[in-house]
C-alpha cells in the first residue's frame, strides 16, 4: 500500500479522494492549514518521508484579475511543492487542473491552471509530473459548484442563466477520485495532460435541466442573460447589503471553456464514466420507490417549508403503522407540496385521511424543536387569511384523499 500526500484535502474533491484512498488501504498525509501549510509556503520538515506520490488539489482563490504572475501564489506554490517533492525523492506529482485550462481562458482560474501546467513541465520535477484536467464535477456532498448548481436548478422553474449553449463534460466526484489515484499510483507514461471528463458532451442548459429532473422537479425555462449583464449584476452584489456577494470569476467560468477530447485518457486510465442522470437519480433518491417517505416529506414540507430526513422517516413509519400510507398524493403534489393547501380538509375532520396524516406531521414537527417559533404577526395573519379563503376550494377538492 502506498503513502500519499494530498493538498486541498478538505475541499469538495479532496474530501472524497481522501476517503477513497483510505478505503483502498492507502496511507494519507493531509497537507493543509492544519499542518501549518498554505500554498506558496515551504513544506514542513519530514512531510515527504516515505511518500510515494503527491496529489495537489489546493487552489487559492485570493488572486486579483490582472495581477502579475509573480503575485499569484498558485503558480509559484505549485512549482515549489513539486520541486521539493522531487528533491525529497517522491516519484510522482499529480496536479489537478481543469478542462477550462487554456492560455486565453475567460477567467483567471483557467488561465492560472494553464500557466501552472506550463511551469511544471519546465520545472526540475517535470519527469514525475502528471496533469489531470478535470471536467464538471458532480455528485457526493452537495457543496461547491455542484451544490450551487443543484440548488439553482431545484429552486424555481424559471432560471436566469448565462452560458447555456456551452458544452460541459460532467464527471462524478468518485470517478475523479479513482482517476487521480490511478495517476498517482501507476506507471503511466507522463507527458500530455490526462482529461478527466466524460467523453460525451451536453450543453450547460441540458445539464441544468437534468439536475432539476433528478430532484423530482418539472421542466426548466431559461431566461438567457447576456454575460455583460451577469457580470454587472455580480459586481452589484458587492454593494447591496444582505445578499451574498457573487464572484465574477464564477460567472466567467460558466461562460468560458470549450470541450476536450477525453476518450483516449479514459482508456489509458481504465476509467469508465457512468451516466450522470442514472447515477444522480440513484444517489438523490435512494428511496424513490418508498412512497411513504416521499409523502411524509411532502407533508412536512407543506407544513414547515422543509423536511428533515429523520423527521420524514419517523412520519413515514407512523403513516405506515396507521394504515395511512400510501395516501395516494399525486406526483404533482409530491413535487410541489404547497398544493396540499387545495386538498386539505379542515383540521377538525380527523376522520379524513389527509387531515389525520397532517396531524401526525404536525406532531413530528413539534418534536423537532423545543418550541415551534411563531412567525410574527403579519405572516400569521396572511397565512390564516389565505387558509380561510381556500376553504370553499377545499370543500370541493378534499374528497379526493378521503
Amino acid at each position: 500500500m502506498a503513502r500519499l500526500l494530498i493538498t486541498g484535502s478538505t475541499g469538495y474533491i479532496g474530501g472524497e479522494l481522501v476517503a477513497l484512498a483510505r478505503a483502498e488501504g492507502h496511507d494519507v498525509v493531509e497537507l493543509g492549514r492544519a499542518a501549518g501549510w498554505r500554498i506558496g509556503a515551504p513544506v514542513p520538515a519530514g512531510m515527504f518521508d516515505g511518500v510515494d506520490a503527491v496529489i495537489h488539489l489546493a487552489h487559492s482563490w485570493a488572486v486579483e484579475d490582472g495581477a502579475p504572475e509573480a503575485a499569484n501564489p498558485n503558480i509559484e506554490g505549485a512549482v515549489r511543492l513539486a520541486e521539493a517533492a522531487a528533491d525529497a525523492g517522491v516519484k510522482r506529482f499529480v496536479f489537478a487542473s481543469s478542462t477550462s485550462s487554456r492560455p486565453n481562458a475567460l477567467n483567471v482560474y483557467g488561465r492560472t491552471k494553464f500557466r501552472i501546467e506550463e511551469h511544471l513541465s519546465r520545472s526540475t520535477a517535470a519527469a514525475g509530473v502528471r496533469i489531470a484536467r478535470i471536467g464538471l464535477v458532480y455528485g457526493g456532498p452537495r457543496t461547491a459548484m455542484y451544490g450551487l448548481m443543484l440548488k439553482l436548478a431545484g429552486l424555481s422553474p424559471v432560471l436566469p442563466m448565462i452560458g447555456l449553449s456551452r458544452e460541459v463534460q460532467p464527471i462524478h466526484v468518485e470517478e475523479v477520485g479513482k482517476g487521480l489515484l490511478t495517476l498517482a499510483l501507476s506507471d503511466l507514461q507522463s507527458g500530455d495532460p490526462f482529461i478527466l471528463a466524460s467523453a460525451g458532451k451536453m450543453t450547460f442548459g441540458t445539464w441544468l435541466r437534468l439536475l432539476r429532473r433528478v430532484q423530482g422537479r418539472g421542466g426548466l425555462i431559461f431566461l438567457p442573460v447576456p454575460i455583460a449583464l451577469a457580470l454587472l449584476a455580480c459586481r452589484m452584489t458587492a454593494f447591496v447589503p444582505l445578499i451574498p456577494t457573487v464572484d465574477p470569476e464564477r460567472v466567467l467560468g460558466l461562460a468560458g471553456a470549450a470541450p476536450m477530447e477525453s476518450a483516449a485518457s479514459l482508456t489509458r486510465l481504465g476509467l469508465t464514466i457512468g451516466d450522470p442522470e442514472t447515477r444522480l437519480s440513484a444517489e438523490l433518491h435512494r428511496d424513490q420507490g418508498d412512497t411513504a417517505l416521499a409523502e411524509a416529506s411532502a407533508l412536512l414540507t407543506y407544513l414547515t417549508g422543509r423536511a428533515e430526513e429523520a423527521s420524514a422517516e419517523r412520519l413515514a413509519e407512523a403513516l405506515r403503522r396507521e394504515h395511512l400510507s400510501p395516501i395516494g398524493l399525486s406526483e404533482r403534489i409530491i413535487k410541489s407540496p404547497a398544493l396540499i393547501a387545495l386538498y386539505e380538509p379542515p383540521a377538525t375532520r380527523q376522520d379524513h385521511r389527509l387531515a389525520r396524516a397532517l396531524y401526525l406531521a404536525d406532531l413530528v414537527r413539534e418534536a423537532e424543536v423545543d418550541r415551534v417559533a411563531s412567525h410574527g404577526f403579519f405572516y400569521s395573519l396572511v397565512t390564516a387569511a389565505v387558509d380561510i379563503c381556500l376553504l370553499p376550494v377545499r370543500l370541493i377538492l378534499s374528497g379526493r384523499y378521503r
Partner: protein
Amino acid sequence: MNAFEPDFIIIGSGPAGVSAAVPLVAAGRRVLMLDGAFGMAETVQGARWERTLGSHLQSLRPDDGTSPKLQAPLARDLINGFLDASAIRGDNFVAVGSLGRGGLSQVWGGQLSLLDEEDLDGWPIRHADLAPSYRAVMARIGVSTTGGGPEAETAALPAGAIASRILARHRRYGLVADFTLWPALNAVLAHPVDGRHGCDLRGDCLFGCERGAIYSSVHDLPLLQKSPHFALTEGARVTELKPHQEFGWAVTTADGREFRAPRVLLAAGVLGSAALLSHLVTFPAEGLRLLNSPTLALPLIAPERLFRRATATHSLAQLGFALRYGHARLDYLTGGFYEVNTLPASSFINRMPTGRRGGRALFDLLSSSLAVATAYFPGDESRTFLHLNRTSEGGGITVRGGFADGLEERAKVILGRLAGHWRRLGLFRLPGAAIATPGTDAHFAGTFPMGGWGNLSTSDLGELSGFPGLHLVDGSILPTLPSKYITLTVMANADRIGRQLSNT
C-alpha cells in the same frame, strides 16, 4: 431478599405507597416495597423527539380525544403497561392505572387541594386526624403557588399574563357568594431542594419535567432507600394475595416469587388494587361502585391579551377555582385554569375548522389570549361500576362508566354559570366545551370505603373487613370523593395510616 424479613409489604411505589412507607421506615419498621415494572416507563431525559413522540413513536398516533397529557409517551407507556398486565378494560370509561416506578405521579398535573371539615362529612376520621399528615406530606413533596398574593407564605412562581390579570380583577371586585378563585397550589418547586431543581418556567411540562421540579413519588425512593429498613423490589408484579397462617400474608408475583409479611399495604392505585382484590372478595351483583369525578373543559379567550407576547410560565394550573351549584355539602365544582400557550398547539389545531397551516397561524395569533378551565364534579355525580368478567369472556374486569341522572343537562346550565363568572372577569367562552369520557379525570375513590357498612368496607386504618393485616392505603378507601384534587389527601391519609401502624 431472604435475609430481609419485612414487617410490612407495600404494593406500589406511587404517591400512596411512598407516603405510607415514609413514617413506617422513620419509625424503624422494616418495609419491603414491590413494584410491578422495571424502572421508569420512559425516560424524560432523551432527545426532544423521544420525549414528545416516545422512543418507539408510541405517541405519534392519531388524536384519541383524551387530554394531550394522557397521549404523551410517558403516560401511554404507564397506562398501556397497566392495562395489558391487569386485564382491565373500560366500557365508556378510560381506565387510567399505572405500572411503573412512581405510578401516575410521573405524569400528574401536580395540583393540590386540602379537604376541610365539611368535605370529611361521612368519614370515620376528623380533620384533626389528617392535619399533621397534610403538613408532613406538603413539606416532603415541596409546594408552591402560582402568582401568590401579597400575604402568601408559600413559595410562589410567577403566573402567566392572563391568570395574573384575572386574579387581580377577582380580588378587586370582591367576594361573590358561589365562586372563588385562588392562586393554584402545585407540587412544583420554586427553589431547588435535595437534587431537584426549581421550575424554570419553560413550559413544556406535558412531557415530563427534566428538572425534577414537579413532584413525583420517584423522588422519594432514593431517600427511603438510604434506610436499612427499606427495600424496593422492582419487576415484581403482584398477582395474588393470600392469608398465611404462620406469616400473616403471602404475596405472589407474576414471575412466581413469593414474599411474606405480617401486614400487607395495598397501594396499587384504585383500579390496580381492585384488580388484585378481585381474587379475594366477591364483587356485588350490580358491580363494585367506583367514585370518579366527571370532568369538563371550557375553552376561554381573553380579548385584552390578543396578539400580545405570552409570558413564560409552567404548563400546570395557574389558578384554582370553585363554583357551588347546589345545597348539599359536596355540591361544588373544583377546577384549574391553564394558559394555552404553554401547551403544544397540535391538538388545539384539531379543534379549528381551518387547514393545518392556517390553524397553526391562528394559534400563533391567538394563543397568548387563550385559556382553558377544567372543572371536576364530585364523585357522587358518577355512576361507575367494576364488573368481574366471566372466565368464558376471558376473565378480567370491565369498568362501566356513567354519570348520575341528568348530569349532562345540569352540566350545561352549570357551565353557563361558570362562563358568566369568567365573563365578569374578562374571559369569553369559546365553542367546544364538553364533558369528557368518564375515567379521563383520573380522580378515583370509594371502592373499599373506610367506615362503610358492607363486607367490602375498610376500617379507619384501611384494613379490609374480614382480612386482618390487609390494608388499603390508596384512593380506594376514601368514603366520598369531593370535587377537589384528591392526591394530596390520598397521600396524607396513607401517611396517617403509616404513622398509626408504626406503633402496632
